[in-house]
């Protein structure tokens, strides 16, 4: 955790209140035993493990949490929640942090992962179902690493696992209106929150 400077802890900060209300978890139940970080499959590449994120929430370090790579690298595999001795659903805490990060449009530490999710949702909005080929292509282009993940492409095509054309689904109109309504509700919800 390349953190410098002295910390001025702000207990029961609005970060903590947001996490507790959206995830329904009591952050102060955590006694920092480290079992979540120990079992997390992605903690070896994270700048802050799940335990340190819980600690940062207890201390109210909002930026540190939202700028961390942890909330994006988390695969939400629930191992931490299944093994937490204080039965805290840490996966749900991570999820609520991602919602906060998305809502605040803060700069994601893992740009590629954020891009992947955003592309994934745009593709569903457009054709109702995921089309791997376009997802891969767009991800490589927009992520400015055009030749990544190409190794499997020939094998996939040879085995007829990738259809060249995106799937056509009758329900697409419904999906598009669903996305639009969700966006509208979000905006209205935020307007109310700002007042």
């Amino acid at each position, binding site marked *: *955790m390349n953190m410098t400077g002295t910390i001025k802890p702000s207990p029961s900060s609005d970060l903590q209140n947001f996490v507790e209300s959206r995830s329904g978890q009591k952050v102060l139940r955590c*006694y*920092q*035993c*480290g*079992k*979540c*970080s*120990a*079992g*997390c499959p992605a*903690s*070896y590449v994270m700048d*802050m*493990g799940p*335990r*340190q994120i819980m600690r940062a929430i207890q201390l109210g370090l909002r930026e540190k949490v939202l700028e961390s790579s942890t909330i994006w690298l988390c695969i939400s595999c629930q*191992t931490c929640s299944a*093994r*937490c*001795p*204080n*039965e805290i659903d840490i996966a749900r805490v991570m999820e609520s942090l991602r919602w906060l990060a998305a809502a605040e449009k803060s700069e994601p530490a893992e740009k590629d992962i954020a891009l992947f999710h955003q592309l994934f949702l745009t593709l569903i909005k457009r054709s109702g179902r995921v089309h791997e080929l376009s997802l891969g292509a767009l991800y490589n282009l927009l992520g400015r690493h055009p030749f990544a993940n190409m190794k499997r492409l020939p094998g996939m095509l040879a085995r007829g696992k990738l259809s060249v054309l995106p799937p056509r689904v009758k329900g697409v109109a419904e999906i598009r209106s669903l996305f639009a309504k969700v966006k509208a509700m979000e905006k209205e919800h935020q307007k109310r929150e700002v007042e």
Partner: protein
Amino acid sequence: MARTGVFICHCGTNIGGTVDVSKVLEAAKSMPTVAYVDDNTYSCSEPGQASIHDAIIENRLDRVVIGCCSPRMHENTFRKTVATAGINPYLLEISNIREHCSWVHGDDKEAATDKAIELVRMAVAKVASLEPLFSRQVGLTKRALVIGGGIAGIQAALDIANADYEVVLVEREPSIGGRMAQLDKTFPTLDCSACILAPKMVDVAQHPNITLLTYAEVQDVKGFVGNFEVNILQKARKVDHIKCTGCGTCWQKCLERTPSEFNLEMGKRSAIYIPFPQAVPLKPVIDTEHCAHFKYLEAKEEGRDLPDCNICQQLCPVSAIDYEQEDQIISERFGAIIVATGYQTFDHSVYHEYGSGRYADVITGLHLERLLSASGPTGGEVIRPSDGLLPKTVVFVSCVGSRDEQKGRAYCSKVCCMYMAKQAIMLKEHDPEVQCYIFYIDIRAGGKDFEEFARRAQEEYGTLYLRGRISKIYQEGKKLIVCGEDSLIGRPVEIAADLVVLATGMEPSIGAAELAQRLKISYDTNNFFIEAHPKLRPVETNTDGIFLAGSCIGPRDIPESVAQGGAAAAKVAALFSQDVLTTDPMVATIDPMLCSGCLLCTQVCPFNAIDTQVTRDGRTIALVNETMCKGCGLCVASCRFGAADLRGFTQQQILAQVTSLWR
């Protein structure tokens, strides 16, 4: 006309901080029969009691209500106070305005004060209808029963016997010694467990005042303090322990081999066996399940034939082997009972993420004690159970089955941090090339010389303490990979270990809940017995005459168990120092004029304390045997004619409390 005195206690700020005491006093003045009101900061203190005593005399009071803490706390204290002032001690009513009022309604002072007034009004209404009661004397059997032959039970038995009272020590296993007998060394002094325990065990065997009943269990318990009737099941040992001299021929010559429970299945024992070399009594029992002779008998019944064997019977020089010996019920009378049933280690198979027993080289602390012990299955050589090789990297894991609500064990087991340090030191002494790691959350070393001892494990013996709870253990080739996090540096940590020792926590020994129900003492959600008061009465239970000692109350180490064994013994000696016991006068009464003789109450009474008597006009009616009656009031609620009543909780007294409400 009754003259009642009402005394309200501030209890410092515990009551005064929330309840407006002057307002309560003001309200009390106008309550019926109240002749005097007063308050003091601490009624239970010397000056507090003195001021109540003087007020009673000066104002010729004949009944007292005290608004203070729970009656379970100081009812007896204040009964003595009013008695010294010349009032019958049972013309007193306590109104609980602390635990049931100020402490639980701190957020609403006004409501707390109103409620306190109501509680005092109820007490005043009840005290008006209280009658003087007189306790009676009853005989007392000066014999004590100690259940459990671990270090706590041994200490208790010895101390009572040394106070020259008879003791019966009942132990479920074939030998006394309990968990401590399984330990190699003890912290923080590293003296050998057997060396300090064996002499005490021998003292127990040789003490004239102690009758030792091993391989025996308490079946049921009747009666009450001074007059307990206990049935003890003496399981058939199939060996006559009077004739037997403990020469050892039988258990050396027996051909059967079965895993030894004492060595946690890591070694073998014969069918006729003593659990460990320093066993007391040094006389064997036959394990009928694994004995060839009894397997032969069982097969014969089912029409199968197996070779018979009676080697032990033939070779026994004093012919002490008696296959026909049967289980026996011994019933005895006791004046007091000490429960010292000890603990067992947590069964770590619920930890699937640690392999749940799948990996042979993942053992518990107690397993390691047996491996370290010279009388253990490997003669003190610590080897990997899987391939017998010497481990060079040993990883200790703390809090297995402790501080883990997800596994139903929220409490800290107190001793694991210390025995991990001890074992790390012992491993290094056995083999200097060993490198020990200890995964911990918080090192708890609160006892005398504990912290210094734990520091030695790191400083002198090079143990590497890693702060963090591990999440997974899995096998990779011959190594066990332990996945944890060092939360001090903040990075995940993986160690390839040859041996992993899980510091499993303490839980009550099997059957604790059933024993508690037989003794009618309360136990908590983890099945530990509940002491009368955690701070002020740690070795007593709420049932008079039944005492507790050792880790059956909660995680305890050896010094505490010994101290509590002695403390419980002191309580028993104090009890036995009187020749008679005064009984509780709050017992049931039957009004002969109203009793129709239906005798329903005699069937209802759990203590069959209600006999019958014939009145002058020839009617048979019920009669309460006041020494047997425990004052539960079951008969009162069952009597349809209102003939039965319970002194101290009469129908009229309770109704008075009800009708005084919301006037």
